[in-house]
Every structure is written in structure tokens, then in C-alpha cells.
């Protein structure tokens, strides 16, 4: 491990933090541009100007935007996202449980979809252009082409309504036994898997096929290695960077893109929380959720970049 690789990684992380700050500015600015403010939203149509002024004073809305931004940012850094206007609850506490639910669902969807996508991608390359390849690609593309809400309702219709194997509504609560919890998330996790599978599998297939053109694959073939060994030992290590990239994009989607699935299955995660509070115009909650989503997205992409750097032997072992 030389210093150039550490320097590159440090650069990526610094860049990620900078990006996150920029996003926080955008989120804050975006909510400021919206007509009306929190005080108006709380008091509603019947507010008297005095009441508005009082509430603004109380909430600190009289201060310039830049001061409020830094107050908000300072709070966020210390884990204080403020209080939700509508429920008057502490946002950090409310998000805590929901973020955990979302991550739980995303984790199991990823635990199934990532290995499955990579194995299917490898198999598609092994039997490329044959019936196996076509069947894998066809199934994966079909599942991606269907909108996620449609996939969700199909699953509900067959497995919850007709067969009654799994609940159609994924209610989870604190202290729920693990197996019951798994049963509850079976359908949303399956829907998410189907949605992200094709993209990862196709990219795995394309990345490996690209590497399969290289001269060192011919060398491996002329050593008498089997096709699967060639793909596994010689092609896959050189295709890691693009594969990790697409896997991370999809993991990010599993966390931030689950809004629709969570609403369909009434799953108490971040997405549903966000949708609820957007309809109520609860600006502090929207800001907090937006920032967390951005952090997840940027964090996973940093991991992808670092993985690509570490996977490159030229950077790992400089001359």
C-alpha cells in the first residue's frame, strides 16, 4: 500500500464531504424558495399578522437565511434535525426507527439481489448467446421493464391474495420476532430485487464480456482452463470496478428509491415518512430526509470509487 492510493482515497472522501455540503445548501435554498414559510403553514389560512409575527420570532425565522442555514447545519452535524412542525416530535428520533426499517429492507433486498445478479451475469457470459443467456437476459429485462408499483401489486395479488403465503401489508413494530419480520418484508424485498436485478446483471455481463476480449483471456484458454475458471479467475477481477459501480448505484436506489414500494406495502420506512410529510408540507422533515438520502447516495458512491481504486493493481502496487 503506497501513499498514492491513500492520497487518492483521501481526495475522494474530501470530495464527497464537499458534495454533501453543496447538497445541503441546495436543499436549504430549495425549501426557502417555496412560497410561504413554516409559520404560515402552521397557522394556516386564518392566521392574524400578529400571530404570524410572534411565531416567526419564536421559531427564529426573522433571522437572515444564511444564519438559519448555519444553525440548521450545526444542528444536523450534532444529530439534531429539529422538530417536525406537524407532530411537534423530534425528527431525529422519528427518523431513527424508520431509517432502521428502510435499511433492514434494503439490506435483505441487496443480500439477495447482488449475489444473484453477479452469478446470473457470470452464467450469462459462460453460456453467452445460447438459450441460457437469452433466458436470463429476457427474464431480467422483463422484470425491469415493468414499473415497480405494477410488480408490487402483482406480487400482492398472487402471493398475498391468491396463495396467501405472505401478508399484503408489511406492518412491522418494535420487538417483532425476526422470522415474522422477515415474513413481513418478503414481498417488498422481492419487488425491489426484481427491480434492481436486471441492471446489475446486464452490467456484470457487459463488463465481463468486455474483459473477455483481452489477450490474457486467450492466454488462460491456451493454458487449458475451463470456461468457468477463466471467467472467475481471469475476467472477473478485471471487471470489478464497473460492477461495483453499478452495484453501488443500485444499493443507493434500494435506500432512496423505495418510496413507491414502501407506500404500496405500507411499510414504515423513510420513503413513506417522506411522502407523508411532503403532503403536509412539513419542511424540516423534508430537509432532513433529503439530506440523509443524499448522504447515503454520496457515501455509497465513495465506496464504489474506493473499491475501483483498490481493485486496480497499478495503483495498489506502483512501480
Amino acid at each position: 500500500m503506497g501513499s498514492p492510493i491513500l492520497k487518492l482515497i483521501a481526495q475522494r472522501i474530501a470530495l464527497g464531504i464537499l458534495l454533501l455540503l453543496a447538497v445541503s445548501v441546495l436543499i436549504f435554498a430549495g425549501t426557502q424558495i417555496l412560497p410561504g414559510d413554516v409559520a404560515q403553514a402552521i397557522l394556516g389560512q386564518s392566521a392574524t399578522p400578529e400571530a404570524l409575527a410572534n411565531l416567526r420570532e419564536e421559531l427564529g425565522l426573522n433571522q437572515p437565511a444564511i444564519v438559519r442555514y448555519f444553525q440548521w447545519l450545526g444542528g444536523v452535524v450534532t444529530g439534531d434535525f429539529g422538530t417536525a412542525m406537524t407532530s411537534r416530535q423530534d425528527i431525529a428520533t422519528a427518523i431513527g426507527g424508520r431509517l432502521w426499517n428502510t435499511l433492514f429492507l434494503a439490506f435483505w433486498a441487496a443480500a439477495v439481489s447482488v449475489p444473484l445478479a453477479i452469478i446470473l451475469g457470470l452464467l450469462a457470459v459462460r453460456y453467452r448467446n445460447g438459450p441460457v443467456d437469452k433466458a436470463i437476459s429476457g427474464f431480467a429485462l422483463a422484470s425491469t421493464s415493468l414499473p415497480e408499483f405494477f410488480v408490487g401489486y402483482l406480487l400482492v395479488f398472487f402471493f398475498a391474495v391468491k396463495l396467501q403465503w405472505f401478508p399484503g401489508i408489511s406492518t412491522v413494530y418494535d420487538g417483532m420476532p425476526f422470522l415474522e419480520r422477515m415474513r413481513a418484508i418478503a414481498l417488498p424485498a422481492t419487488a425491489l430485487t426484481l427491480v434492481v436485478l436486471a441492471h446489475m446483471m446486464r452490467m456484470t455481463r457487459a463488463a465481463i464480456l468486455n474483459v473477455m476480449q483481452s489477450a490474457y483471456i486467450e492466454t488462460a484458454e491456451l493454458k487449458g482452463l475451463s470456461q468457468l475458471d477463466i471467467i472467475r479467475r481471469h475476467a472477473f477481477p478485471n471487471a470489478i470496478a464497473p460492477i461495483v459501480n453499478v452495484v453501488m448505484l443500485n444499493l443507493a436506489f434500494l435506500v432512496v428509491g423505495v418510496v413507491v414500494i414502501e407506500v404500496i406495502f405500507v411499510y414504515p420506512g423513510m420513503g413513506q415518512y417522506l411522502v407523508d410529510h411532503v403532503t403536509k408540507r412539513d419542511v424540516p422533515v423534508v430537509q432532513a430526509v433529503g439530506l440523509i438520502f443524499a448522504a447515503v447516495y454520496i457515501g455509497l458512491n465513495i465506496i464504489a470509487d474506493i473499491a475501483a481504486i483498490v481493485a486496480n493493481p497499478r495503483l495498489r502496487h506502483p512501480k
Partner: protein
Amino acid sequence: MAKAAVKKQHDGKLLEVRDLKIEATVYPPGEDPKDVTIVHGVSLTLERGKVLGLIGESGAGKSTIGLSSMAYGRGGVRITGGEVVLNGRDILKAGRGGIRKIRGREVCYVAQSAAAAFNPAHKLMDQVVEATVEHGTATRAEAEKRARALFRKLSLPDPDNIGNRYPHQVSGGQLQRVMTAMALCSEPDLIVFDEPTTALDVTTQIDVLAAIKDAIRDTGVAALYITHDLAVVAQVADQIMVLRHGKLVEWGDTRQIIKEPRQEYTNKLVSVHEIEHQEKTPGASPVLSVQNVTASYGGGMDVLKNVSVDIYPGQTLAVVGESGSGKSTLARAITGLLPPRNGSIAFNGRTLSNALRERTRDDLRELQMIYQMADVAMNPRQTVATIIGRPLEFYFNMRGRERDAAVAELLDKIEMGKGFADRYPAELSGGQKQRVCIARALAAKPKLIICDEVTSALDPLVAHGILRLLLDLQAEEDVAYLFITHDLATVKSIADSIAVMYRGEVVRYGSKSEVLAPPFDDYTDLLLSSVPEMEIGWLEKAIGGRRMASAGN
């Protein structure tokens, strides 16, 4: 033990190819795909421990025949007829699993570009012992021990630890030797060497060639040695087979092929293609004068150090040196692609500004360039007429019939008929592509053309034609050439003056007769003595007589 018994059983005959027929499907642009025959019924036999050289121009089917001994067809090539009998059985009938047991165990392969043939993600040792361990002929520890002994035999530096390195951490010449060690590691009966030294500098080639030759002799392995360079194969082969268009031309002992060729084609390959070129004396004032130019990429190490050369109108300056010596960087500095940090460049009596964007259109027009890779220097979606017509439109504002007439005239000059005007680059041969690039450069009516290794990618006979054309055009158009090359035979044929470059510096500069006459400095001596000669025993003599070791081996 068992292996020795097998050897006796087949009384010395290791490989017998009978009536081999190989086909491929080609997809010509704008036509339906069709099957073409690449190899038409070639037969050969190879005895244990012997080396057979397969030689011919590109498209002769040498690699295809060589790879058939591993029952392998590269890029969709199919073996459609004949037998390949290895160790007494037809391997074409062995089936997928059977062939896998032969590859990497009985036959191994050494590729032209070891840099591309090694997997960048794995350490060298893992790759060298992989076939041996895979086939179970030795344990991992035994195989590694064997590999280290082979590294030592091939005189690789630090043989005990070089296996821990990754491919990008060793030089091209070393990689080529590691690849030879990889082929020898599983103790095969046969190794296919596919142009193993072609991609190397001459000064490096000689060391790798000597290492390969010693290794073949000491291990007693048989080899098919594929190359287009007769002088190289004459150093290692017992027998030589000359191929052309997938057919056998002549097959005989090495001495007979190079001394008493029986076929006219072999004779053409064997005879030296030096063009008698009368050296011109320098004129009054140079067309291009490079003064004390120093340049570097991105502020790093200097790749050009205080270089000064002159080129006179209608004459040729050849710049020679091995890869990394700064030849092409000099061209980039002159064309303005890499603005020099110090020094000045005067062209046709005026000082050229260093940066490309500050040069006038006439500066650009009068200084043209031709590249090594003609096919990537042309837009594949433009016809020959468009490619040649572009500079006519751009510099002289020619349109319509006037331009077409000028294109026809240029095609005539490069000895290609009007019929080529509507063709696409993909429909041309390598030599024809290079001719179109020459015509494109000439269309601008330049005073100087920079030729960067323009014949290096071509077969000797084709390259010979290109050199002749360049000389004829020089006589007609009075254009000067800056001719960058690593090939000294080419230099002798075309140059009026020569600059020898080594590590960014001009180490020897003067008229051709001065530069090529002794006493030589050490580097020029090394360069000159490394050029293979078509003489049996040249290799040993050249290695013995060297004063300095090459830098890049």
C-alpha cells in the same frame, strides 16, 4: 517415466499436421457475410526437440497454423479439415475436455505481446505456475521452484522475487522472458512462439532471442517459431517453412532456405531490400531548424534535452533510437502538439510559435504528418476521396470537379487507380492505407512531412514499396522528410542525414556517411550490432561482441 515411454513409442515424431484446412467467416462492408479459406491443406511434421520456423507476410496463416497445434482458432476461425496428430493421436477429435488436458500441458503458447497476454490483476508467479498446478503435473511448491530456476535460466533480474511482481512492474523485454518461463514451466513437449520478439526494440530483441534460444536448447523442448523476420528465425530454427496466402511455398533446412532458396517468393524474402540511396549534400539554408529544444510532459522529467537538428529542403533526416528515446516527442514538439519549454524552432526562414494554436494556417499546411498506424489515422466512415479531398478543401478552397481532379492526380501519384476513390479504409490493404495517408499529406503541398514509423507496421515487401514511393515523391515535389524509425535498414535506404537519439538526447548527428562510419560511440555501436542479419550464428557473434548492455531489457 511414463512420458519417456511415450516418447520412445512414437520414434521422434512429435507433431504431424496433415492436410490442414482452416476457414473463417468474414463480414465485408456492404456485402453478405461469406466463408473464406485461410489455410489450404498445409501439412507439416515436427520431431521432438526440433524448432520449425513458420514464416510469411501477414495473412499467410502462420499464427493460424501454429495455433492449430493447440486445436485453437482465434477470433471465430474454424479448423474444417485435416488432422493434427500430437503424441500419436489426432487432437482435433479429442473433444472440449480432451483439448483442455493438452493445452498448457503438452503444448504451450508464447504470445507476441506479453504485456497484453499477462493478466494485470494477478502476480506473475501465480500466472506462471497456473497451468502446471491446474493440470496436476506438480505441486504448487514444486512448480514455483521450477519457475524460479527458469527465471534464472532466462537471466531475469532478481529471479527469486520477480514472481511477486505484477505485470506492469516489469519491462516489456522481461515480460516476454517471463512468458517464455510460463510456457516452459509445465514442461511441455511443444511451445508455439508467436512473434515473441517483434514488439521489442532491436537492442532488447537480441537479448530475449538469446534467452529463448538457450532455453529451447537446454530443455530440449520442440518449438514452432512464428515470425515475419527471416533473419530472426534463422538464428533459432532447424527448419523453415515459408507460407503465403495459407499455402506452403517452400520447406527446408534453415541453411538451404536462406542460402539456396528454390522458390522465387522465398528468394524475394531472403534478398536484402536495401535501396541504393545517394546521399545529398546539405543545401544553403535549412527548411527546418530545431535549436536547443527541451521539453517535458506536464512538468515532469525532461524527455527532450537540448535537441538541435536541421533539415534541408528536399532531403531526409532520419531520427533513430529505441522506444522512449524521445523520437516521437521531437515530432510532437515540432508540430506544436507539445510546446517546448526551451529552445526555438525555425521553419522556412520564420520562427514558429511554440504553441499550436498560435500558428498560422500556412504553418500548419506546410508541415504535415504521416503516422505508424494508417488505419487509425483515417476516419473509417469516409471514402478515400473524402479523406484526400479534405486538405484540398481546407487549405486551397477547392470544390467540386476541381477537387475531384486533384484527388485523381494524387491517387495517380501514389500509384493507386481512380477506382479507389470511392472505397472505404476497411476495404484497403495495409500498404494501400499508408499510401492514402501519404496522399493526404501531399495534398497540402507541404515543405516538410514528418513520417513517424510509417513502415513499422508493414510487411517487408510492402514497406519496401512505400519507401520507394516516398523517395520518388521527394524527387518530384522537393519535399523534406523527418523520418522517425527504429529500423536501421530503413535509415540506410532513405536518409541523407541521421540523428541517433538515446534517452532524450541526440548522441550522434551528421550526414549518413559520417554517422554510419566507425568509430562509433557505444550506443550507436549497440544499435547497429543489434540489427539481425540473415546469417546462421549471427546471434552468438553479436552478443559476444557487444560493448554495452541495452537499457530496456
